[in-house]
């Protein structure tokens, strides 16, 4: 967003000329300045350590938890849930989206129920799922899977419905069978929409997983923060905030990278 803004000479009027991307240094300076201000505010006693731990304290907490293996366990558990739950939800969503996009009958039969359920925030299903699944691993996998399912199904549906009609006619002329139709036409044509859906559902799944872990878990980033809160370990909570933000950022960036790589052929 920031780099797009810099393409337009907005601040200096039309005569100010072009500015291209901000150098990475420019983006880092304010963050470093903030960290320093934070450290100084803590060292001078502006904030007591019960309220705000300096960045060095957060770093120490991160190092300590890494050395004891605690951090790896929490991050590993969270990422494992995310991977498995997301894989289930995304595959199911893709299949569901494809079915209701390809068959008018399936659409008429299933989309009203789907659209109704879609109105409910995923987090509102959490208490009901706790009732049925308990608070163990199946519950967390199911939450992630549901969070991934809906955006994925919609993106796949839109992607397939967006394929021009005459492409199907070409397939008919060539007498393509269904597997070939899927492999040669549907897959390439829907890849961009599906990848965007994957990115959206991945970040949603992560948000919902952290919320579910806050509510009920014995491990994971969310549980680490919740335990830190209950034990008044502000350094652990801040470390959790940072790690969860970093993971969210990397997931989004990774998905964007895949998206741009996989859709490169479209520009040509």
């Amino acid at each position, binding site marked *: *967003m920031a780099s797009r803004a810099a393409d337009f000479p907005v601040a200096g009027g*039309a005569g100010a000329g072009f500015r291209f991307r*901000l150098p990475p240094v420019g983006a880092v300076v304010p963050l470093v300045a*903030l960290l320093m201000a934070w450290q100084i505010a803590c060292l001078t006693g502006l904030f007591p350590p019960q309220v705000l731990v300096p960045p060095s304290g957060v770093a120490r907490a991160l190092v300590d938890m890494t050395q004891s293996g605690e951090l790896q366990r929490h991050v590993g558990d969270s990422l494992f849930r995310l991977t498995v739950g997301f894989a289930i939800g995304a595959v199911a969503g893709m299949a569901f989206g494809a079915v209701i996009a390809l068959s008018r*009958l399936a659409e008429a039969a299933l989309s009203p129920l789907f659209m109704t359920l879609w109105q409910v*925030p995923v987090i*509102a299903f959490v208490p009901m799922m706790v009732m049925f699944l308990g608070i163990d691993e199946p519950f967390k996998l199911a939450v992630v899977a549901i969070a991934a399912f809906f955006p994925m199904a919609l993106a796949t549906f839109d992607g397939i419905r967006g394929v021009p009609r005459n492409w199907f006619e070409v397939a008919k002329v060539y007498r393509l069978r269904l597997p070939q139709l899927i492999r040669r036409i549907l897959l390439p044509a829907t890849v961009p929409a599906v990848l965007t859906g994957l990115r959206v559902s991945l970040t949603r799944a992560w948000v919902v997983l952290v919320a579910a872990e806050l509510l009920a878990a014995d491990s994971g980033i969310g549980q680490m923060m919740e335990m830190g809160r209950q034990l008044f370990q502000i350094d652990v909570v801040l470390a959790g905030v940072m790690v969860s933000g970093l993971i969210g950022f990397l997931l989004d960036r990774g998905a964007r990278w895949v998206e741009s790589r996989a859709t490169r052929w479209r520009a040509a």
Partner: protein
Amino acid sequence: MNSLLARFPVRLLIGLAAPALLIGWWQWQASAHIVSFAPPAAVGSALVEMLRSGDLLRDTLSTLARAFTGLAIGAPLGVALGIAMGIWKPVDRVLGPLLHALRQVPMIGWLPLMGLWFGVGEGTELIVVSMSAFFPSMLNSHAGVAEVERRYLEVGSILRFGTVQRIRFILLPAAMPLVLTGITQALAFAWIATIGTELLTGAGSGLGVAMGQAQMQQRLDVMLVVIGATAALGFVINHLFRRLRRSALRWQPSLP
């Protein structure tokens, strides 16, 4: 087949088949005496009971109040800051990296920290809801101002617009559609965050709080009433906002 599907009553019948199957399965499960599996009819009586006692109305109103208070705090701040960042690049340089870093954290993930700082209560809930409303308004407003079409700015420079005129007559109107998109998104985010924070903190009253209590008391019927209310309200609010947005942007000739 397709011509048959084009008829509305047929579509309606087919569309009702899946929910009917679901309810039938549920009735069957409930009659098989599975613990905590209230039969469908119990949801109806729970709804009547909750309407009569006024619990549903109270919870709905306090959830709505919380979501809209959060929106009223977060969205104007986000719009103002987003527009300021779009107009004055130094503001963007200083605040941009910080805000983008903060944005990466799942909003609900702020709850433990805010809980430590401000106590687990209504204040914490409101802060997290406001933050959820803030970021989409900020991002979209920023994009709206920053991605204004160059030719509009060129017209402004031909007319020798000053800074104030450029902001007033070019940047703000051009940014309007995205600003409103941002506010619509902010509303959706604030709504989800309200339900989530209520559920997690359990403070005060609200639909999320009611859900959490229903879970503890193993009252599936109450829970389904609350989920239904959440879905209906979310649908109505989003629909109203979309109409508001359209009427606010009437002057725009071509709108997606």
